[in-house]
């Protein structure tokens, strides 16, 4: 991959469109370079409520609250944020709440920051240990179908789903 880390790329534009077509109108996020386009588009869209969080676990509970009110939400985070959510995922599993979280991965393919490796490696086992599902997108073509699958599993089958936007897809940040 030669993509500059965090640069705007067409699949991120398409991903925003896909989420909006699925009536997702609450975007919760912790700022992240890999989600830059989604975050910016969510801020610009007057029909979207865009909420920056102080910690990712707030977003887990916020998405569940939105479901209580009959609205669809998405939680954007980096892989390190998954570790901040673990106990709050109990709300998703225990309550059979739908949750779609899009996780930009660090600590895997080509990582140059050793601090990212432990949590990056732990993301999938941690998510699955809390009774949620992990779907991976490795290429731009996989992003749309994978996120649509996650939305269907969440909002039709009351599942928690993490879509891992892998480092092969996003690109490795240079250090």
């Amino acid at each position, binding site marked *: 991959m030669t993509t500059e880390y965090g640069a705007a790329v067409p699949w991120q534009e398409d991903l925003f469109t896909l989420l909006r077509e699925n009536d997702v109108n*609450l975007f*919760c996020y912790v700022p992240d370079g890999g989600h830059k386009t989604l975050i910016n588009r969510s801020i610009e869209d007057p029909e979207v*409520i865009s*909420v*920056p*969080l*102080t*910690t990712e*676990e*707030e*977003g*887990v*509970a*916020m*998405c*569940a*609250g*939105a*479901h*209580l*009110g*009959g*609205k669809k*939400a998405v939680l954007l985070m980096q892989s390190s944020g998954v570790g901040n959510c673990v*106990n*709050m995922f*109990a*709300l998703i599993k*225990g*309550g*059979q*709440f739908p949750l779609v979280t899009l996780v930009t991965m660090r600590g895997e393919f080509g990582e140059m920051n050793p601090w990212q490796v432990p949590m990056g490696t732990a993301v999938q086992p941690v998510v699955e240990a809390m009774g949620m599902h992990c779907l991976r997108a490795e290429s731009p073509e996989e992003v749309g179908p994978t996120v649509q699958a996650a939305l269907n599993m969440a909002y039709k089958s009351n599942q928690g789903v993490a879509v891992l936007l892998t480092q092969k897809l996003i690109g490795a940040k240079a250090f």
Partner: protein
Amino acid sequence: MNDVRFLDRKQAVPAIVGDPSDLLIVCGLAGASKDIAHLTNDGDNIFTMAGAMGGATAMGLGLALSRPDKRVLVVTGDGELLMNVGTLATVGIMKPANLSILCVDNGHYGETGYQESHTQRGVNLEVIAQGSAIPVTRTVTTEDQIAEAAQVLRNSNASSFVLLRVSTEPPPAVKRSMDASERKTAFRRALLGTR
């Protein structure tokens, strides 16, 4: 005033919440959930917790942003709120006018044996709420302050936070559902007419 705690939550919480029937209420674990489950007979307009500590305010924020047509009340305790006190800052930047937060502050972790919480040792959650840019805040330590704070929670046209200082008298004994999925389904059926 930080150590003035003589209100009994069994009287003070119902007095400050008033008629709960037209509110959507999200309750943090333990005492706050028991207070409100008792007040509403475990009603379908409340979502109570027995875990997910630190999640009540965020859940209420998500609900309030999704349903601007309804008044959403978060009822939480000092320990539950302290676990994710940063959420007050997220409320403070979003400022939904229909969100009110009631923190029932007994200065202790009642559920685990009444160990002192940080608020018993000088931490002031109303000041933190003010510093978090929540527009309207109050502290209630005496009975004569309850009526005005109740009006704030119910009618404020900006996000509000009320710190209700209470004694260590326990919350009411109540049988309530601890099945989060059942609670969710009942809440959504009552509000939305759907699962």
